[in-house]
């Protein structure tokens, strides 16, 4: 008999290729381990189970629920596919819920599926918890099966979303938008809420297609090219794009131009502060645009900068006092709603902003840049030989350049990779991947020319040619 497949929990759960390592046997092993760990801490507690639109995700979810309930837990499975934030919101609002399980591989390509664990507040499970689950894994799938309930997770969640925005303002604005769920778990839901609000909606990639039409369900170019073209050809006001489990957001303005998540974080933060009277810190990651810092400075808001990864933002949310947290990938969350990213909520916030101000996203960004000054941002991913990458990683503690691309280095930070702060708020960040022979190079500066110079300098540093 072959050895059981190695199962490890990464930053956001266990992910594997369906029918390769992601099999019913392995899923049951994981659910069995999770069930034992959860029930030992919280005997008889409720575990909510959600799933996205991937191949057989619902069937896997029900299989997981059978195993979880065999440990004396009350397992409740969503009656339909749902976004990750919907599962998390329900867990956080259900006093009996001690954990959540989401069957999703987020933005990964179609062959993948994953098993995410969520804690009682709806937030991601800490490493200490997933370590316990890994340690509890048995080599053979469990034979025991229990009963589970089927529940409506989407109804209450959508109702809460409706209550967070000004439906009348959106209705009065007669917006025409495209919604692109990329065949993922936002399918039908965001478009449905918009239609209830009187918005004219064209939904693309809204059919059931576990192959994602060959796209990666990630709300960035080139996967959003179809919807950008649609906005231009149909003269729409905007488009909103969500990823495979609808926790990330991408947007497109009236001209069909991609609105990057940095600008979405800044726009929504400004909206929450100025228009909705919310207070608290903004949490961003080290790779997020300085636009956010400048905006916060103008508004008198504190900014907390964390390493890359939503788990760091989540930790700040648990500490309290956070108004909004977001990262470069488009994962943006408002903790008063749930301590998790929520692509649907962000789309509704952007639409509310457009409606209340009577402006398109492009104009809102112009207003923002008028306040903050312009900044340009780019990122490149350098694939390097492992030896070159390792050499770069080894050199990080010793790197002390006084000048980069002709600009004097004001400060060097090493909280996540190495970041050089330069005049005029420009910066260069190099972050080695933890798992691949890859170094991500980010740069931001007042002009694209300088950004390109910085990226070239970053490449030279990573490759060790300077």
């Amino acid at each position: 008999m072959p050895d059981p497949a190695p199962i490890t929990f990464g930053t956001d759960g266990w992910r594997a290729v369906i029918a390769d390592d992601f099999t019913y046997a392995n899923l049951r092993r994981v659910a069995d381990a999770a069930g034992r760990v959860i029930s030992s801490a919280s005997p008889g507690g409720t575990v909510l189970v959600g799933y996205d639109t991937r191949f057989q995700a619902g069937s896997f979810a029900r299989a997981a629920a059978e195993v979880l309930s065999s440990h004396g837990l009350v397992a409740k499975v969503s009656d339909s596919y749902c976004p990750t934030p919907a599962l998390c919101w329900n867990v956080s609002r259900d006093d009996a819920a001690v954990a959540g399980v989401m069957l999703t591989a987020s933005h990964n390509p179609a062959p993948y599926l994953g098993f995410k664990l969520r804690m009682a507040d709806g937030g991601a499970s800490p490493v200490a918890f997933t370590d316990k689950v890994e340690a509890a894994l048995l080599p053979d799938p469990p034979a025991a099966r229990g009963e589970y309930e089927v529940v409506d997770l989407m109804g209450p969640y959508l109702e809460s979303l409706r209550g967070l925005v000004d439906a009348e303002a959106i209705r009065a604005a007669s917006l025409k938008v495209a919604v692109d769920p990329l065949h993922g778990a936002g399918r039908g839901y965001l478009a449905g809420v918009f239609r209830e609000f009187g918005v004219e909606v064209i939904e693309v990639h809204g059919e059931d297609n576990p192959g994602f039409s060959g796209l990666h369900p990630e709300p960035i170019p080139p996967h959003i090219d179809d919807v950008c073209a649609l906005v231009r050809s149909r003269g729409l006001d905007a488009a909103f794009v969500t990823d495979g489990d609808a926790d990330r957001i991408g947007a497109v303005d009236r001209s069909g131009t991609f609105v990057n998540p940095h600008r979405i974080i800044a726009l929504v933060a400004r909206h929450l502060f100025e228009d909705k009277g919310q207070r608290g810190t903004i949490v961003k990651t080290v790779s997020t645009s300085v636009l956010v810092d400048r905006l916060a400075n103008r508004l008198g808001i504190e900014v907390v900068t964390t390493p890359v990864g939503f788990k760091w933002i989540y930790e700040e949310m648990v500490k309290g006092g956070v108004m909004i947290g977001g990262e470069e990938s488009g994962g943006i969350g408002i903790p008063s709603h749930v301590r998790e990213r929520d692509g649907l909520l962000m789309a509704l916030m952007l639409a509310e902003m457009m409606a209340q101000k009577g402006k398109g996203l492009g104009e809102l960004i112009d207003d923002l840049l008028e306040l903050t000054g312009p900044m340009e941002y780019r990122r490149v991913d350098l694939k390097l030989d492992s030896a070159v990458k390792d050499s770069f990683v080894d050199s990080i503690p010793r790197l002390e350049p006084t000048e980069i691309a002709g600009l004097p280095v004001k400060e060097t930070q090493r909280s996540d990779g190495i970041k050089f702060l330069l005049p005029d708020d420009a910066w260069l960040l190099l972050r080695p991947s933890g798992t691949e022979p890859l170094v991500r190079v980010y740069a931001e500066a007042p002009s694209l020319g300088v950004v390109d110079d910085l990226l070239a300098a970053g490449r030279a540093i990573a490759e060790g040619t300077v």
Partner: protein
Amino acid sequence: MMRVLVDCRMADWSGVGRYSTGLTRALADRDDIELIQVVADRGTTPVSDALSIPAAARPFTLAGGLELGRIVRRVAPDVTHCLHFPVPRPVPQPLVVTLHDLSPLIVSGVMPSLIRRVVYRRMNVAAVRGADRLICPSANTASDVRRLLSAGERVRVVPEAADDFSSGEVGPLPSGLAGVRYVLSMGNTKPHKDLPTLLAAFSRVSPLRPDVRLVLAGEDRPGYIADVLGSDPAAAKVGFAGRTDDATLRALYGNAAVFAFPSLYEGFGLPPLEAMALGAPVVCARDTSLPEVVGDAAIMFDPGDVSALAAAVSRVLDDPGEAARLRAAGRQRAAMLTWAATAEATVGVYREVTGR
């Protein structure tokens, strides 16, 4: 779910540290608590898996109180629990404070400096005035807190535990102790620990039992034993074990023929509980909180009574049946006190102040 902020800045300390890690880890295991722990940013003791907020300033300074106050305002917990008497500034509500003992105000010599005693008293008074509930580890300490600090009816008694300590890895004995019969005690030479009474008792026990040694767990205090015992030949059989880690301490407890604890004042008395949990027969003074901790699972003697202590130690050394009875009773007694139970009772106090 109740959001609780716990001040664990003193987790590196000995007694308060044991309490900090034991209670906090048990609270972190509960699903009705969202726990956030404030830790010293230079601290080395891992407290629990709960989210940590580092604090830079020293706990006993004004800066430390103000920093903790800022953290409390940010976290906005349902309840703040200070695991020792330094409290946040301004004092948040609701606030629970644990007072472990008042030995500096009760036992002469524990805190010789008058100025420090005045500051100590003021800080404790501030904690008592600010706290909605006070937790003491024993009824005896609760009585002291009511009597000396006018704490009224806000004091609750929640015993501590040793199950986390006793379940850890047992290391090898320090060199030279393997196969040796020894009486174990703690090497704290502060006056209220009353080591002189133990040393005097050992000098009476030793002549008839030349194979038995007295081991004092803790760092060597050069000259201390000679100062107390002078030219008594028993002095040659007494020694400090030196700085020991927890694994070594567990080995010392587990292999001891007797654990003798002559302390004149304890707020709780974790060492005899740890000794019982690891199977050492316990002999301890019948005073302050110790009878509450050991129950009827130890031989007790009147504090400071050399003859009675010598008789009790001799009885355990000479009577294997008595030693076995004490070992079994001690394990049984220790099993009744767990950090999970401490956490359960502590959460009960949180519920009192939050009304949830």
